[in-house]
């Protein structure tokens, strides 16, 4: 009797598989997977963004006359589970469009899976350059500006600051490493006389903030380039403020203007940092206003950058399907080439050369207003302006297509 359990388990699997495979013909299904449990701060607003987009699309008649249905899954925050979840979406739910992922390595694993299994994949958030360049493939597009683009957006102001001695601090994983790599490369090109005086690479989520802030201060840099985010950033800022690490120093910081990372700092948020981010309260364009109103009406909360990413992910796919006139994978791939999408940040396109979207980001300075962190003197930098030209991209994309 003892070992009947695995059989029962198998039967249970078979049964659930059977019950779920019936699906309606008048919907278009999109399989969406993300690290909801391991990165909730970014991904809860992201999910709201998705819901908003789906509602808007379905209320206005859907896509190709069919309703859009997004099937969301937790990818477990690791590539192994993510690939299984992707397979589940494809084989059990019968989707042929995948979207989502947050962590760079999860995104890369799903990119790899999509390429191998000929499934369309729109990487929403993972920032690593490899998704569109070294490891890029025909089936994968990416929405968010890559680390290279984010760094490049900050570069003009960095060069203008004319600082010689730089300290770098970044989380020691793909995102941090590739951001620093891009920074070093661009700094060398644009300002050959600058030097790196210290480089701190604490483990992600485990920064020893006091020691790191102190070590940076001891190195006496003129400027600091920061890539920390989340709890690491909060700890680093608090320790740095107490120790005077940021006093009279120019700080350039990636993503730190995004509400999900800077808002928790409240009145302790740094002032005068050069950041990329999302000043939702001050973007006056009509397309953003419409998005903001709809979002606030529905969720009684302000949008984070994640909300925009989720929203635009779905809008992109809808636009792609409409242009292709079908959900056929090959047609969809072709339709995405130079696909123009209207977003709350304005229109952008998916480049044919490297499948990277040109949706940009806001670059500005941090400040405090009524005890709340804000971005000031910001400007929108179009992704197209910072991406390398097509012929250069060709070289970066060995397996392209």
């Amino acid at each position, binding site marked *: *009797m003892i*070992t009947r359990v695995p059989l029962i388990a198998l039967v249970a699997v078979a049964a*659930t*598989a059977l019950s779920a*495979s019936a699906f309606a013909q008048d919907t278009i299904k999109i399989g969406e997977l993300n690290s909801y*449990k*391991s990165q909730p701060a970014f991904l809860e607003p992201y999910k709201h963004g998705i819901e908003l987009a789906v509602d808007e699309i379905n209320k206005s008649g859907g896509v190709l006359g069919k309703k859009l249905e997004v099937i969301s899954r937790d990818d477990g925050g*690791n590539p192994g589970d993510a690939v299984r979840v992707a397979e589940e979406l494809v084989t059990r739910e019968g989707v042929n469009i995948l979207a989502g992922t947050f962590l760079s390595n999860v995104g890369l694993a799903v990119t790899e899976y999509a390429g191998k299994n000929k499934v369309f994949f729109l990487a929403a958030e993972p920032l690593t350059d490899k998704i569109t360049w070294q490891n890029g493939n025909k089936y994968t597009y990416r929405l968010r500006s890559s680390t290279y683009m984010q760094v490049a957006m900050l570069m003009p102001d960095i060069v203008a600051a004319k600082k010689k001695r730089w300290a770098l601090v970044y989380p020691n994983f793909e995102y941090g490493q590739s951001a620093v790599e891009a920074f070093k490369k661009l700094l060398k090109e644009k300002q050959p006389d600058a030097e790196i005086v210290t480089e701190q690479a604490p483990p992600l989520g485990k920064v020893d903030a006091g020691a790191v802030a102190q*070590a940076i201060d001891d190195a006496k840099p003129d400027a600091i380039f920061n890539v920390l985010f989340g709890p690491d950033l909060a700890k680093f800022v608090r320790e740095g403020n107490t120790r005077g690490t940021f006093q009279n120093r120019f700080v350039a910081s990636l993503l730190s203007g995004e509400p999900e990372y800077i808002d*928790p700092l409240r009145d302790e948020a740094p002032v005068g940092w050069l950041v990329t981010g999302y000043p939702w309260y001050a973007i006056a364009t009509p397309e953003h206003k419409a998005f903001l109103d709809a979002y606030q009406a529905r969720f009684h909360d302000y949008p984070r950058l994640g909300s925009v990413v989720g929203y635009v992910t779905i809008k992109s796919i809808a636009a792609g399907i409409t242009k292709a006139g079908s959900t056929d994978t090959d047609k969809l791939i072709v339709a995405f080439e130079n696909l123009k999408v209207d977003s709350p940040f304005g229109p952008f396109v998916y480049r044919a050369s490297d499948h990277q979207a040109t949706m940009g980001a806001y670059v500005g300075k941090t400040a405090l207003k009524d005890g709340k962190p804000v971005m000031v003197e910001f400007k929108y930098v179009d992704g197209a302006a910072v991406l390398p030209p097509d012929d250069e991209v060709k070289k970066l994309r060995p397996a392209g297509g």
Partner: protein
Amino acid sequence: MTVQSLLFQAIDGLAAASGLFFVAAGLSLIFGVTRIVNIAHGSLYMLGTYVAATIALRFEGALGFWGGVILTAALIGLFGAVIEIVLLRRIYRAPELFQLLATFALVLIINDAALWIWGPEDLLGPRAPGLRGAIEVLGRRLPTYNVFLIVIGPLVLLILHLALAKTRFGRLVRAATQDREMVGALGVNQGLLFTSVFALGSLLAGLGGALQVAREPASLLTDLIVISDAFVVVVVGGMGSITGAYLAAVIIAEVKALCISIGTASIAGVAFNFSKLTLVAEFLVMAVVLIVRPHGLLGRRQTVMRSLAEPEEPLRPAPAALKAVGAGVVVALALTPLLARSQPYVLVLGIDVLLMVLFATSLHFIMGPGGMHSFGHAAYFGLGAYGAGLLVKWFAATMPFGLVAAPILALLGALLFGWFAVRLSGVYLAMLTLAFAQIVWSIATQWGELTGGSNGILGIWPSAPFDIRSAFFLLTAALTLLGVLLLRRLLFAPFGYAMRAGRDSQLRAEAIGIDVRRVHWIGFAIAGAVAGVAGGLFAFAKGSISPETIDVGRSIDALVMVLLGGIQTLTGPIVGASVFAVLQDTVMRQTEYWRALLGAIILALVLLFPAGIVGGLARLRLRLVRP
């Protein structure tokens, strides 16, 4: 870097040490007395940060903050007492380590509960009123709050030390730490002692969390980070030794501070960034300490712990019914590819389930019959996966070569690490295996040129004819079956008996000429190699391998699967792995709060089947057969 900056970092490091000490001291006390490996200790700490931050934000000012710290500690202590009374007390008589399952379930539940209560965004509490500034030390600014922490750590150490040395409660705690059975003999109300120790340990975790509010935000990610740090500190210091815990906390904090303050240095002309070492520094320290001092810095050899549970039944050959079921499973597996067209996902999930079965069975091999509780079995899974992946990446090898390389690399790793591990026993062995696993993990993460760093290795796909899913499924099924049967065969052979003899009584096994260390070493290596096969197959099944796949979470999963099925039976790991893998897959799909649901299901199973699922069913059958 100057001498002054080093010195300053050293002083600063003492503040970090105090923080580590609070959590570790509670964990050490709890383990010392109750022998429970409380994985939920980090969750109690996390709750402490959230509760204290909430109170301090609601009631501003000094009273809100400092009163909040004290109130938080008390609340978390109370919560700990409730956990002990409601949950853990029911399963003290379960086989060793089983309580770990319950605390694992609590980790899942508490994390989702915190998400539900406080939402996903980090919660930054206020700075400590009165201690916002900094003082000038060595020409640098030392935050006054750090000065406070530097003082409060040793102060709490002193208080605990006196309480343990001078009070009746303290004497009982020390007696129980040395020999749990003695406490029963002393006529002490054991239940009350355990409850109060659990409450005290939880209080310390809550206090540790509350005091960090002034330094860092409350975040849902802290529970697992803190628990791994705390374990390292406890083990380095010596289980049950509070002073040892402080000493270890200081050493680890100082080593990290040193790595950070050195920054990038040039060794023999090669630039090396020491700050990256903080990822693994604590585990390196732990491995070195355990190799040199097997019971930690100030720990004592533990009395042999006689399990409160009944010893396992003698091994009997499979009865006809079991054989029939086994044959049925084999036939079912062979027929499963027929579903490839109509139910392709059954194959996908089936491959994952089979790999977990093989992985869990290999852990059970050393954990059950060998009595070696490896907390780092993911290392060998990972070595197998990377063995296959590296061969594919660097030599463009095809799958057959990859699948040969997988167990070989895992075997070599297990031979190396096992040689050290079998010299220890009990929880020290568990922690040394964990340290080795973390070292493997950090090599995979750090040595980017070789391993692809945090991205891992991509493009590891099966070669023909196994590039068709049903063929790969059959291959996986065949190798899993082979592995499981091979391990089973070994257990019925003299080698397996020798391994069990060494576990039952090392002294007596040696007295009849069995070289227990050697037997256990070879057993460890075999288990590693089999785990390597599972890892190799995993890499090809997923097309990629990256450090997350082999982190501490996977080691814990393996433990959970073995314990869930029942450590005292041979079919336990098979059932445990199947149930856990299917459950996780199903639950992840069903609900937003899937972790809490998974935790609740595990808790229910723990309470229903305190000997694991198979163990519970077997007992039930015995009761029916012999009323």
